[in-house]
């Protein structure tokens, strides 16, 4: 697999500089770290939002930095959680005195590293709060569910909440509400290739797809014979709907997320069936986004996220955002 890179060991460093050089007026890098923050951080009187994790999920997480979403993003090596010292730097650089919310995806590594950073921040007198995203229904045990594309909604909605001047506790509560109401499931048509080893994360035969994948090139829960876009849409919708627990008047937000190498054309074909199915089942769709939001390098496939909305979430979802990867 050919990649548009230089030394694999330099890839994160070079990526971060590349991101900043594209948006020098809105994003800056903390020297000698893998942390990017809003150019104007810390923002006075505002709770700061920090997210992050392993790299390879671009535009997550740095693409979501900007007014209305994140104040900072911490990047680890490819698919490897960043270390506590890096997270701490992000916390220190974005805290305006109003406290910092850490948006953590539910992986052992992310949880532990961010948690250690929170302990270190506490020692320095900075108040932090955490939310742990666990939207991936491919994992049965709700406690053990991974954080995947639903994280984007947490950034967007909690980010908008923070812009209202809400307290750390309030922003945390809103973020938690998003987490409680977001459910995702994904499918891979082909694996991604680790830049360091040049090896695929799993093997798929020419006529196989992988259901219930995470976002780190790890294998999914089930291999299936190749299915059509419509069949995959039906499978995901059917698995997700019981999990979002909709009452009659509830509306949902829909995210069709490409895993990195799926042509946008195919995402639209997939979305068409998703919308048809939701309509058939009487589910009202308030908002839909289609694109690459939380990727796994050059994996082919997609994930589907449903987020149950209430009035607060709708208003915050519609609020402006200046993030490079999520302008609103």
């Amino acid at each position, binding site marked *: 697999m050919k990649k548009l890179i230089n030394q694999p060991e330099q890839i994160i460093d070079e990526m971060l500089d590349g991101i900043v050089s594209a948006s020098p007026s809105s994003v800056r890098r903390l020297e000698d770290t893998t942390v990017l923050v809003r150019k104007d951080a810390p923002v006075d009187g505002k709770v700061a939002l920090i997210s992050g994790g*392993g790299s390879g999920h671009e535009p997550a997480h740095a693409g979501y930095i900007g007014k209305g979403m994140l104040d900072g993003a911490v990047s*680890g*090596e*490819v*698919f*490897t*959680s*960043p*270390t*506590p*010292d*890096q997270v701490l730097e992000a916390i220190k650089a974005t805290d305006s005195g109003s406290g910092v919310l850490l948006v953590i995806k539910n*992986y*052992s*590594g992310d949880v*532990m*590293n961010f*948690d*250690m950073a929170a302990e270190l921040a506490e020692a320095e007198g900075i108040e932090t709060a955490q939310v742990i995203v666990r939207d991936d229904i*491919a*994992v049965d045990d709700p406690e*053990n569910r*991974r954080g995947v594309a639903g994280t984007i909604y947490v950034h967007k909605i909690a980010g908008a909440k923070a812009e209202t001047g809400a307290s750390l506790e309030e922003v945390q509560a809103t973020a938690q509400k998003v987490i409680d109401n977001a459910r995702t499931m994904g499918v891979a048509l082909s694996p991604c290739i*680790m830049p*360091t*080893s040049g*090896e695929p*994360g*799993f093997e798929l035969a020419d006529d196989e797809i992988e259901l219930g994948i*995470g976002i*780190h*090139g*790890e*294998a999914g*829960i089930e291999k299936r014979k190749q299915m059509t876009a419509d069949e995959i849409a039906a499978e995901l919708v059917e698995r997700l709907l019981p999990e979002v627990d909709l009452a009659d008047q509830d509306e949902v937000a829909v995210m069709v997320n490409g895993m990195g190498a799926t042509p946008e054309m195919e995402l639209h074909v997939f979305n068409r069936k998703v919308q048809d199915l939701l309509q058939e089942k009487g589910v009202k769709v308030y908002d839909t986004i289609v694109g690459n939001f939380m990727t796994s390098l050059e994996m082919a496939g997609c994930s589907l996220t449903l987020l149950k909305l209430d009035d607060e979430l709708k208003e915050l979802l519609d609020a402006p955002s200046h993030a490079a990867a999520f302008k609103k």
Partner: protein
Amino acid sequence: MQLTVEDTIQWLKQFNDRLSEQKDYLSQLDRAIGDGDHGINMARGFQQVAEGLDGDFDEVSDVLKKTATTVMSKVGGASGPLYGTAFLKMSMECKGKDVDAAVLADMVEAALGGIKQRGKSEEGEKTMIDVWAPVLGTLQEEDFDAERLKQTAEEAMQKTEDMTATKGRASYFKEKSQGHLDPGAVSSYYLFAELADVIGKGA
């Protein structure tokens, strides 16, 4: 037995050598039931540890403290905080002390406690804990024996093959995680094998 500052440095250097030799193997183990980076993570971090061992250290605790901070800031992933915590707890436990067999057992006990707390995990979940716990058992026996330490670690590591993972990335594989060694258990085995080697030579 007695673990000196030099022994400790030697131990960590040998561990680093072993990790860089076995980097691909560890990553391959992780590819089967995780995300394929355990070897890369460990080798990256302990390379830095090894490079930082040339200074002057007053006591074993200082070596371990420095190791802990380097591991925490260079390894990343799940193994970074876990090994980092382990070394930090060992360092705290032996502060101001000469490291004999009894102190070593206390150190591993503290480390194991730290790992469990940090990882919110227990024995039997197919993680590095399944090596650390039996190793602690051996160290707590009366007569210290380097060879037995190594054997215990090796057998414990082997036993993770049949276990079902309930923590970490491997847990997503559920029953399918059976039949594969846990990568963190294997790297922990290397850690104790090199410790046994250093102590064995010194004794």
